[in-house]
């Protein structure tokens, strides 16, 4: 009696039992978001609204309905809220992201990757 449409949507229960995080950055981004709510940088409602909006946008853009997409929405929402609630702007985020990339590329494999401080910025 299964109609093909409902079978297409079946993966819901099939992901039951899978871990809540696939990669460390997913735990990190959620930890940062929750900590910023607790620290009062923005409210729980502002967080929920921003995440809801990011999820809605991602869904309408046709992104896959999976955990990777979800945490990317968490990251997008968080970057947006940080930009609007602190003096850290998108440019600073992009710049720091490039610094980290450079740090990884210039650190020999096996050694701890550290960001060069101030003089590079």
């Amino acid at each position, binding site marked *: 009696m299964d109609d093909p449409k*409902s079978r297409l949507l079946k993966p819901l229960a099939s992901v039951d039992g899978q871990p809540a995080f696939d990669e460390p950055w997913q735990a990190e981004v959620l930890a*940062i978001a929750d900590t910023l709510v607790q620290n009062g940088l923005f409210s729980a409602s502002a967080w929920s609204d921003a995440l809801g909006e990011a999820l809605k946008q991602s869904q309408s853009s046709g992104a896959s309905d999976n955990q990777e997409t979800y*945490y990317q929405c968490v990251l997008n929402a968080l970057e947006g809220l940080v930009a609007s609630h602190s003096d850290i702007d998108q440019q600073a985020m*992009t710049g*720091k992201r490039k610094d980290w990339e450079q740090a*990884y590329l210039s650190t020999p*494999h096996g050694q701890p990757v550290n960001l060069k401080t101030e003089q590079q910025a």
Partner: protein
Amino acid sequence: MATDTKSTPDFDASKVAEIHQHLHSHLPSESALRVKALETLLVDKGLVNPKTIDAWIEAYTEEIGPKRGAMVVAKAWCDPEYKARLMRDAPAAIDELGFLGKATAHLKVVENTDEVHNLVVCTLCSCYPFSILGIAPPWYKAAAYRSRAVRDPRGVLSEFGIDLDVDIEVHVWDSTAELRYLVLPQRPAGTEDMSEEELAGLVSRNSMIGTDRDLGENIEDDG
């Protein structure tokens, strides 16, 4: 353009490409780099403490999980007065067990009965009582669940193996940042002699969200 010169063998070019690729293979993903950037900036501004972030991750990956919710449920099954307090003021009752967190500061407990089955969702994002259930499972965060739990709750329940009788009402609760929900599942028959701890072992995470119902299936048959 020279295309075939033995003096400039393409060995070097391919070696360079190989080294380049090798380096890139150690590069974290784009998302991971963005998170690192964000954390560095927030730490530099004094807006987060890296130790707090590490402690959060450790707590939620190792310590805080649905066991806490299961203990609340088992206590409510064994102690009618506790259950009354839980139904009346869930945060205060959860605080009695020391599990109160910010995500459970506003929580309502909804009870399953022979006539009613409760299902919890957050249609907007993924609001969830994570200080007593841990991090929400992947399906809870999926767009498919968030939309279908309201539109077709029986269909969703059926996917999780629950085929409800038509005369059982389904109540769907939409969580928000201000109000989250916990389902109090029914105590299975034949568990009168079980201790609170044993009972907690029967309570699945999904039963406290509503995608599991008959916990009698979890009783091990020592028979």
